[in-house]
Structure formats: C-alpha cells, structure tokens
C-alpha cells in the first residue's frame, strides 16, 4: 500500500531528526546535527531490509518515490521564498564574503574530485535521477487485473 511507503519515509525522517536533535544536545549545540543525513541512512537501510525479505512492494516504492519526484518542485518553492532582497542589498562586505568563499569552495570541489578519483553513476543512480526528475517510467507499473 502506498501509505506504508509514505509512513516509512515519515518514520525515518522523524527518527533521524530526533537523533539529530539528541546529537546536538550531546555536543552542546543549539542546532540539529545531521538529522536529515541520519534519516537518509535509515531509509537506505530500511529499503535493503525490505528488499531482502521480499516486502518491497510497488506501493511502498511509489509512496517514497512520489516524494522524491516532488523534490524539484519543492526546491522551486523554496527558491521563491528566499530573502533575495536582503541578499542583493547587503552591500560589498556581504558580496565579497559570499563570492570569496564560493570561489574557494568550488575550487576545493575541483581539487577533491580530482584526487578522490572519478566514479561512475551506475544504473541505480541513473534510475534515482529519473525518479527525482519526475520522469521515471516504472514508478508504478500497472498490475494486471
């Protein structure tokens, strides 16, 4: 059932964010430390577990993949509510600090990806890309009645 997929995603998110809060408290930080990252790892583990037990139904997959497919629209909505006025009227100190750190970090990405070696996105990653783009054909194969 689709709702099990959505509920699985919700449970992973809630547990992950909760653990992130706990980690923040343990470190004495007024912020969530890696909650979403922990939730992602939980979801990956849950998928592998379900897959091994043969319980990864199309409904469960669709429940999760629907939200993966909503990712880009949600990001567009996120962009539409940024405080762009503040960003553009912040003055030279804001622009210089932002551009400077950006250029340096882009450079570091180039350096790290060169030293780290290239990796090839396999079929799984390519399918994930199609899902996130909202164009995967096999999201919910129609069952024969």
């Amino acid at each position, binding site marked *: 059932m689709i709702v099990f997929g959505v509920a699985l*995603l919700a449970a992973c998110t809630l547990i992950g*964010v909760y653990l992130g809060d706990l980690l*923040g408290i343990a470190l004495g*930080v*007024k*912020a969530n*430390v890696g*909650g*979403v*990252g922990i*939730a*992602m790892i939980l*979801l990956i583990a849950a*998928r592998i577990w379900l897959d091994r037990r043969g319980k990864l139904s199309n409904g469960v*997959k669709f429940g999760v993949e*629907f939200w993966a497919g909503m*990712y*880009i*629209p*949600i*990001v*567009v*909505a*996120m*962009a*539409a*509510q*940024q*405080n*762009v*006025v*503040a*960003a*553009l009227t*912040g003055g030279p100190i*804001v622009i*210089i*600090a*932002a551009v*400077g*750190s*950006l250029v*340096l*970090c*882009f450079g570091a*990405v*180039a350096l*790290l*990806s060169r030293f*780290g070696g*290239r*990796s090839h*996105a*396999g079929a*799984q*990653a390519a*399918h*994930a*890309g199609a899902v*996130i783009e909202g164009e995967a054909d096999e999201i919910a194969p129609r069952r024969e009645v």
Partner: protein
Amino acid sequence: MNSIGIWHGIEHVFIEQSLVAAFAVVGGLILVSNYAAKRLTNGRVHGSAIAIVLGLVLAYFGGLYTGGKKGVADIPALAGIGLMGGAMLRDFAIVATAFEVDVIEARRAGLLGVLALALGTILPFIVGTLTAVAFGYHDAVSITTIGAGAITYIVGPVTGAAIGADSTVMALSIATGVTKAVMVMVGTPLVAKLIGLDNPRSAMAYGGLMGTVSGVAGGLAATDPKLVPYGALTATFHTGIGCLVGPSIFFLTVRALVG
C-alpha cells in the same frame, strides 16, 4: 459580479487552499521553465535551473512588494509556497531522494565527505573573517559572527547569539549566508563541468563544501537530479558542525588572534 468581485473570489480560494494553490502555481512555473529550456536554450540549460532562477526573481519582487523576508510567501494568496518550500517538506523530500542511493558508492566516498565537511567549514569562515577585518571590524565577536555567516545563514545567527553579537552584525551575517545560498543555486550549473561535478563522489565532496542545504538542494537539482542524494547526505551535517565549532573553537581562535 464585477471584475473586482471575481478577483476577490479567486484570492479567497487561494488563501483557503494555500498548499493546493502552491502546487498549481509551482507546477505552472516549471511548465513554463521547461518550455523555455527547450525552445529558448535548445535544451542546453536544465528546465529546473530556469525554474529555480525564476523562483528567486519572483522572491525578489515579492520581497520588494511586501517588504517581508519570505519572498512570495509573504503575499497572502501565495502563502502556501511557504509551506511547500519550507524546511519540513524540503527535508521530507530530501530524505526520499535517498531511497535509491548507490550504497557502495556512498560508502566509498565517506572519507572524502568528511574532508569536504572540514574544508567547507574552515574555508568560508576564513574568507568571512578576513572580509570583516578588511571592512574595519576589530572585535572578536563581530569578526566571528560575520565569518560564521559565510558558512551558512543558520550558523551565522546561532554563533552570533551564543557569543553576544549586536543586531547589525547579525543582519550582515545572515545576509552573507543567504547571498551564498542564492549564489550556490545559480552558480552550480554554470561551473559544474569545470569542477568535475558529474559523479556521486564529487557530489558528496560538493555537498560537504557548499554546506547550505538550500543552496546544495537547488544547485544539484539544477545541475543533475541523480546527484541530489549524494550531495544532500553530506550537506545536512554541515550546519550542525558549523554551529558546533563557530561559537567554540572558531571564536576562541579569533579572540586569541585579535586580542
């Protein structure tokens, strides 16, 4: 019914059905963007890149029009955009993208991700602090707060509040972080080829270095959707780490240096 009456009726529906209205508006925005990507750029520019930039442009005019801080979401009829693009659904969707992560690839890049996170916290902080000093700030609290803002727009105010920065410096710090996030969204697809951002491993390095979840989320969506989960995986640790070292190690270091 006259035209004003009709307009009020539509506005009423948009306010009452705010999230549903947001789905329709964003869908329309993406439709227009995909059409523009295909027709105007011949497919060279990703449709979602245009949609994100269009969203930012709308946020600018929304901010000018309302004087608020939340772009178009401050317009009552478009308040649903605030819910749709808010932290709750954003994180929910980011977690969902992990469902088909290539586990072996992600694990192989683990160490690289940690290194990227360290660099992504230190480098922007140094640039931010040097900029603050160059613009005449001499006290450790202000310098640290502005430097922390260059990490992300959450690390800035969290650090500033912890060490007692004044509100002008806090505003500068937040503005630096927001500007960085916006620039990451727009800049990433432009430099992706140049910095080798085309495989899961470099995406994990990118997520750790850029940090700002909204910037990374937007930047990767506009570049290559299949890289999204890898970048997000490291980026989500960035703000927490920044909040950890900003008011502690970083502040103490700056205080030791400037006295």
